């Protein structure tokens, strides 16, 4: 039995018929072809699949697409605006916060939610916030710096023209 759902993803409403067991991560990746959301485990442990549901981070590998019916989802593809990188994306680039890039979308979305709730987090708060996201490449230190970079930029936007 298929269910008809409407999910707003990155501001665009999508309606689709889905199997009730379809995971949100597969809905995003396979149905909508938004492959920036990744899959790294089977046990809700790694956070590679993290997206924002109504602004709050969830692990989309442990969430059914039908549960997202009527909600709004933000994925990595929704971070940049009008071709301009979001400060969090800039921060990851500036501070070398990514290597293979597989954890990066999930990390950035969790960071976005953190900074919206707490614009000036301590290092400890950042580390705690991203502790549900594994990174195998960076050792986290530059991810922390990247989020700090973004926090500064969001608090004091760059002068116009930059």
């Amino acid at each position: 039995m298929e269910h008809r759902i409407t999910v707003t993803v990155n501001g665009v409403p999508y309606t689709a018929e889905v199997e009730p067991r379809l995971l949100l991560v597969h809905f995003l990746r396979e149905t909508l072809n938004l492959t920036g959301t990744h899959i790294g485990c089977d046990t809700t442990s790694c956070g590679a699949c993290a997206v924002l549901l109504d602004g709050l981070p969830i692990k989309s590998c442990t969430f059914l697409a039908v549960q997202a019916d009527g909600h709004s989802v933000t994925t990595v593809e929704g971070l940049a605006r009008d071709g301009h990188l979001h400060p969090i994306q800039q921060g990851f680039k500036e501070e070398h916060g990514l290597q293979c890039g597989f954890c990066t979308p999930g990390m950035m979305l969790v960071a976005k939610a953190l900074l919206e709730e707490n614009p000036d987090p301590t290092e400890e708060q950042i580390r705690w916030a991203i502790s549900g996201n594994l990174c195998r490449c960076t050792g986290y230190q530059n991810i922390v710096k990247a989020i700090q970079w973004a926090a500064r930029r969001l608090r004091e936007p760059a002068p116009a023209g930059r």
Partner: protein
Amino acid sequence: MATKLEELGGVGVRLHRREDDRFVRGKGQYLDDIKLPGMLHMEILRSPYAHARIRSVDTSRAKALPGVVAVLTGQDLAAHNLAWMPTLSGDTQAVLATDKVRFQGQEVAAVVAESPYVAKDAVQLIEVDYEPLPVVVDPRKALEPGAPLVRDDKPGQTTNHIYHWEAGDREATERAFREADRVVTLETHYPRCHPAPLECCGCIADVNPATGKATVYMTTQAPHAVRTVFALVTGYPEHQIRIVSPDIGGGFGNKVPVYPGYVVATAASLLLGRPVKWVEDRTGNLTSTGYARDFHMKGELALKGDRIVGLRVRVLGDHGAFYADAQPTKFKIGLFHIVSGSYDIPAAFCEADGAYTNKAPGGVAYRCSFRVTEASFLIERLVQTAAYELGVDPAEFRRRNFIRRDQFPYRSAFGWVYDSGDYHRALDLALEKLGYARWRREQEEARRQGRLLGIGIASFTEIVGAGPSHTFDILGLKMFDSAELRVHPTGKAVLKLGTRTQGQGHETTYAQIVATELGIPARDVEVQEGDTDHTPYGLGTYASRSTPTSGAAAAVVARRLREKARKIAAHLLEVSEDDLEWETGRFYVRGSPDRFKTIQDVALAAYTNFPQGLEPGLEDVCYYDPPNLTFPFGTYAVVVEVDRGTGQWRPLQVVAVDDCGVRINPMIVEGQIMGGLCEGYGIAAMQLITFDEQGNCIGSNFLDYLLPTAWETPRFELYETVTPSPHHPLGAKGVGESATVGSPAAYVNAVIDALAHAGVRNIDMPLTPDRVRAALESVGLAE
């Protein structure tokens, strides 16, 4: 004002990474992101038993499920002579089991279906009748008489013994031990762990029924070698095989071997005439693909006074059900005989035996150059043990036994020729930055208060950049690597290499090499890797070999183009070549610097106005056969506090001094080191793949196989010394693995140091709270 090299993004510049632009937008293209028209999905059925005979496999219910296109068993593959494949160590490995299963998680059958969900459903419907057999998981027991025989498929194989291997000089070493006034011994197990890149392994096999061309997208660190192996194993013509390694979500050695899933998916595509995608899940990744380490080691130092005069090592390697170590053919345990480390030891001998057990195969170099990690760990642990026995400070003991700067190039007792080093300087810098003397005082003070602090040091030497063709090959393929550089008429360039980045930043660093050598801005150089139809042959990226091999090739090919450019510039300026001076990016006439041609001018002329008789164009290829390996080194120093109640320990300070020669991009180098320090911490503290008596894998998912998160990962303080490699064109040495190799011993030494005054000399990794608690109890330190 920015220097010329800064403007160009040359060697030494902290250039932001080119590849980041797509990754931060979610526009990378990893294997699972690729979709081909008509693509089918494959799922593998794995064995629940560690050792069992297969009586029968019934696929009828699976085949009947709507959406299922095919079900393949070992018997189906056997009909095409594909049920077994060779391993990278010259053994054989089952692709899909035919006779029996030999480890839990082994591949038994595969379903190909229209959707991944249907494929997973159908796998559950396959009925396998197993007859469980006695299981052996301990390599020591595996070598006892009467142990269950794992490899009864191999004619003449009557025990679980795989090899005996020796290196060094047994007699000289025995003599050194006879004449020693003290012998220090350490027995320890470097546990089985798994590289666990965040992206699992997978492939899409696309055999075109019209042309016969087999294109396989694959999560591989070594696409060219895979193509040749595929051709040799199947007899499929090599020009009809194209391996494409797309963006890779981390490799760490896990993506070097050829896995059964790749072979089955390719066979399925060939049989069905449609593309077949296979992406393993995490349990499949952790239970069946290349594990690392699992060495039981005994090391002994012969001492005369405070000098090491001999080293003797015995290793028992647990290789699981198939001997599949990814390593150079010549060696049975990789480069383990770098085990004399940073020390000037006149006599050394090492012997090793390997055993089959009912565990997954692997033996991959997990962020490591072929077992240098186990070797480095053992010698750094041994040296600390010896210092305790002598009552000498462990740092001072190292200083007295280091190879001195004036001894390089240094030939070790095992025959390696270390290219360059300055171990004293790296150690001194690390101790200064750590505040070693102050921590020693605090340690005393803490002890008086009943708290346990420990200071651990590891002064590692790596051996990377495999390698020179006289010694190094994998399945006969010599371990050179390559770079092909083509400068377009407008002065932009494309550089193609035989390696494959998995996060190391090759798209940026290789371009920096061209920028330095040719003066073309790094942003104007596109770097391509991973597609065997479009890149020159090479053995791939692992063992920290990219910079020492392909990096060198990039420099050499750029220099060759510079020489051709000189001819064209001379033609344009109407002077003789000898009258030209090169400064980065341009040739000018000696004595009149205003008369010059930029490399871009020359590039255009190479297609529009070249001297008669000169071949048009500006491109070349270099296959670089390194004259020697490179030997990065450094000192890691760690302070920990151990909780006497829980056995938990926590790093308070981590200082890393790395010397990887010339740094092409210091930002990327530091990123590699921090990543390695984190993985080293994970290996020391928590990462463990173990097995119960029935061979059930404990550590088959991320709930059991613990990886460090941002929360417990310590902060790292990085410093450098620079001792260039004398034989690398840029003086670089490679750095991707230094910290994974060197740091586990530093963490463990620190924990042991906290307990050493009470007599504790060893706790096997990982140093989980229960193991540390047991050690505390054993010496009456537990609270």
